[in-house]
């Protein structure tokens, strides 16, 4: 009798448990089903990158070191365009000033026989981006047009991508950038202001691409590659920076990219940068 009662307890207990379990499983499977549905909807993957003729651009940059005078206009233009952190002496001392673009000098040899070069340095937007492979949350990824993007709200700030960037051209926000009033009034409304604890990098000013596309569409015309010009390209007084579609064999960039003077930085690593430099001479 007693045992039976206990058995009842046990049985009810078990039933209750299994009930909850199945309910839980049900809900979750439902969720999975839902997700899978969404995936079905997305097939085939929607693309509006392609123009009507199905041509998909692959954005790339060519920097002619023979024209470049290392004046740094691109650096400042980039900073102004992208609401770059201001920095101060102390931050600079600590190596925490962020500039998506800077001038990289290479000075070799002994006085007075010196081989020297000074090259504008920015994210190389590799076709095999090392930073993308190692990001644990896909916060950085290569989009269908070859732009290597950083999605700030997704980034967890592990700095793995920065470590794996052979060019050390991604930047981490060690603290919140300080913008004393009224500096924010001058911010470019098209670009997000970054905050502490995330990684940021050159975007090839893709906010300009977003706007250019829409503009072209609104004017009811086909989007032309020349509608999209990053700030550094626009700024260069020497017109030493070219930007355009590497997939289009007719474009100036792809012509220059195949010139004899063309080389890419740390090519041997196989990162396949989309920023191509042209040697002097």
């Amino acid at each position, binding site marked *: 009798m007693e*045992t039976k009662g206990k058995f009842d307890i046990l049985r009810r207990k078990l039933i209750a448990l299994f009930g909850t379990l199945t309910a839980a499983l049900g809900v979750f499977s439902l969720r999975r089903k839902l997700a899978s549905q969404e995936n079905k909807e997305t097939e085939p993957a929607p693309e509006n990158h392609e123009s009507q003729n199905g041509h998909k651009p692959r954005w790339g940059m060519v920097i002619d070191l023979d024209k470049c*005078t*290392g*004046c740094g206009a691109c650096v400042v233009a980039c900073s*102004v365009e992208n609401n770059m952190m201001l920095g101060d002496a102390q931050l600079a001392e600590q190596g925490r000033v962020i500039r998506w673009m800077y001038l990289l000098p290479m000075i070799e040899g002994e006085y007075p026989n010196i081989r020297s070069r*000074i090259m504008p340095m920015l994210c190389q937007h590799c076709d095999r981006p090392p930073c993308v492979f190692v990001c644990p949350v896909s916060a950085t990824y290569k989009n269908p047009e070859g732009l290597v993007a950083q999605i700030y709200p997704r980034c967890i700030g592990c700095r793995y991508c920065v470590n794996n960037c052979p060019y050390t051209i991604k930047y981490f926000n060690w603290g919140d950038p300080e913008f004393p009033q009224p500096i924010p009034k001058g*911010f470019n409304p098209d670009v997000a202001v970054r905050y502490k604890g995330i990684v940021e990098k050159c975007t090839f000013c893709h906010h300009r691409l977003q706007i250019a596309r829409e503009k072209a569409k609104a004017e009811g015309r086909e989007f032309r590659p020349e509608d999209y010009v990053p700030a550094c390209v626009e700024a260069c*007084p*020497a017109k030493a920076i070219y930007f355009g579609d590497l997939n289009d064999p007719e474009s100036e960039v792809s012509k220059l990219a195949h010139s004899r003077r063309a080389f890419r930085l740390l090519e041997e690593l196989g990162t396949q940068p989309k920023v191509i430099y042209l040697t002097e001479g």
Partner: protein
Amino acid sequence: MSMKDLMKEIKVNRRGFFKWGAISGTAATLPLWIQKLLPSPVGLKETRPKLYGEESFLPSVCGCCEAGCGVLVRVIKGNAVGIKGNPHHPVNKGALCPKGFTLIQELYHPDRVKTPLKRKGDRGSNEWKPISWEEALGEVSEKLREIRSKGEPHSLLILTGSTNKFERLMLRRFSSAFGTPNIVEVGWCFGQGMVDAASAMMGLNFNFDLEDAAFIISFGFDWLQSFPSPVEATYAYSVLRRGKPDRRVRIVHIEPHLSITGIKADEWIPVKPYTESALALGIAHVIVAEGLYDKDFVLNHTFGFEDWVDEKGRVHLGFKSLLLRDYEPERVSKFTGVDKETIRRLAYEFAEKKPSLALTDRTRFYDQMAVLSLNALVGSIGVKGGILHFDDFFPFSLPPCQQDEIARKGLSSNPITKTDGKIFPLAELVSEEVPDSILNSSYPVNAVLLYRANPVFSSPDLGRWVEAIKTVPFVVSMTSFLDETSMFADIILPLSVTLESWQATSTRTLKGVPVLSLSKPVVEPLYDTLSGVDILLRLTKSIGGTVSESFPWQDASEALKESLRGLFTSGQGEPLSEPPAAEEESWIEEETKPTLDKWFKNIAATGGWTDKKVAEKLPPLKFKTPSGKFEFYSLTLRKRLGEETPDIFCLPHVEDPEFLGELGKEVRLSVAPQGGDGKTFHLYLFVPLVFKGGEGAHLPYLQGIAGSYLSEHRWETWVEINPETADELGLENDEFVWVVSPIGRVKARVKRYVGVPKDVVAMPLGLGHTAYGRWAQYVGSNPSAVVPKVLDKITGQPLWQLTLVRIVKEGKSDGNQRQI
């Protein structure tokens, strides 16, 4: 085991387990719970003002330097949020130099002067109390009236810094209306080109026609960084390199330190500081000796090449014989440290590649002469790709100003700095003499009016200025930022920055095309500030009398429009581009009856005026010199110096005992520091592009790119030392040292740099402010403090490169030096 104890266990465990499950579950989903239970705020906490408004691109003019590039400012809801070059502007063709992009940062700089200020504490204590414009102007005008009533208007000293041409006109007008001859321009002589030599030898202003040159050799002129008009230089460089498919122009750079120009040049030839001119004359020697020079040009268009006889029948030394006498390659090569093969090679290259161009900066007068005459020798004057000579393009003209008796009297009295033409024959007023003259001149200086002038930062041996300024009873400073000099002012009149005020300046492109850059304010003034011209207008009003009669206009735009009437009536030229479509109708009307207003409106709307036709024809080979020719032997100078001066002082030569013998006794003035011992080095100073004109240190975006060739993105003043020297001194990278000269010492960070000779240390000018906003103050140090005041005998320009210094490790004592 029996069902009994199983049950027992269940009892024991049950509650426990469900509870624990729940607990761990909560732990796992904690972030979710937080998300759920904290109310998520609607909207966002703004990182910056959300701008909902239509955007527009308004033209403006960059005020960062004389070049006057045109910019387009992206304005949304009255905020300037973007900037780019004005593609229609002939000077910069849609590009900008780094400084141009920071106009916005300057506009929204947190440390601008926001209202007129009155000094509270004692001078330099930097304690101010905000006052209204009425008070401020009232006080100033009251003081000035008093000065005039005392009948000594000449005791007002006006110091002007970086101004645009129109402001300069108004300031000069003010000085003459007020009646003081003492209006002095202060500022760096870096990056102005060989203006003095040009005026002495051609009587004209000039441009380097870089773009079409076939060979360029620059004597100590870091022209990619410090060209008068940086954007044009940069563009020209790109054209020289890749512009023309068939040829790539060779560029040779001669400088004691591997500057960016040196890096980009095909050949960098290091020489001892201030021996560039010797090299130039060495090259000239070869060219003359081997008859490589342009006979036609030298024969027909120059004076003083051969020896010549004056009206009194005295025979004078000619350039040719001087060269052949003094500058044979062996001697030069010994003096400069450049072997004579190189000299020969350069000479041939320079003579044979035509048109070839030799550049130099505003260094010692005779160095400028040497390089200019080198150009003349090969006939690269007035030719495409050579040196194009022009008279200044100055379209602003106003009716002569009213002057009362006081003013005339004041103007007639001689200026404080100069007494006779013998010293500094080619200078009007010598800014570097000002402090000494304030301290001990024939008459006291009762008031100083500073207009964007900051001599306490930008001149050698700053101490003098501080002392001098302190003695002046009344100092007014018009400025946008509290700079070192303003610290000593009694009243600060805040200036609007470029984007807030009317801008008007005039230049010629390298090709000589006259350009008038003119623009409206693109944003409302952020603070209670006025543009310089507006301040002058209101000031004169309250001074009254003839002074105010000379300034009858309501505001800057009216005055500006009036000053351009002449240009309008001349009927030449046109706006930079088609005026915006918004003004379509009015534009059509204007076709029928052009009026000054419409013309002015269109020019302002498009950012300027230009006359492209000028470019087509080259300037005629006529020169505004006594001889009407290009003068190797400057008669102008002879006239000023007097008949009996030795010929050599009218000819290009090297100012060094080595070449001057007896005459050059006390010429070489560089002095080794006393106190302590140790090796001394030439201190070589240069100005990075971003600090051009002594401004730029207050803008964080500019700070970073100074000295970018050192792979150090640091905000600091560095001293470049050759690694071997550094080893001898036991100096590591980045350690702090004292750079010690007889008059002071500065702290700087060691950069071991292969680009400097062993006996030279190089330092950048532009940092080391003790005021001037949060980003400039106490960043780096100012080498001016160790440079003794040594002036060029002819132009009165300070000579920066003559200092000998010692390098002392930080912490080590170094005699009793004044610490800066």
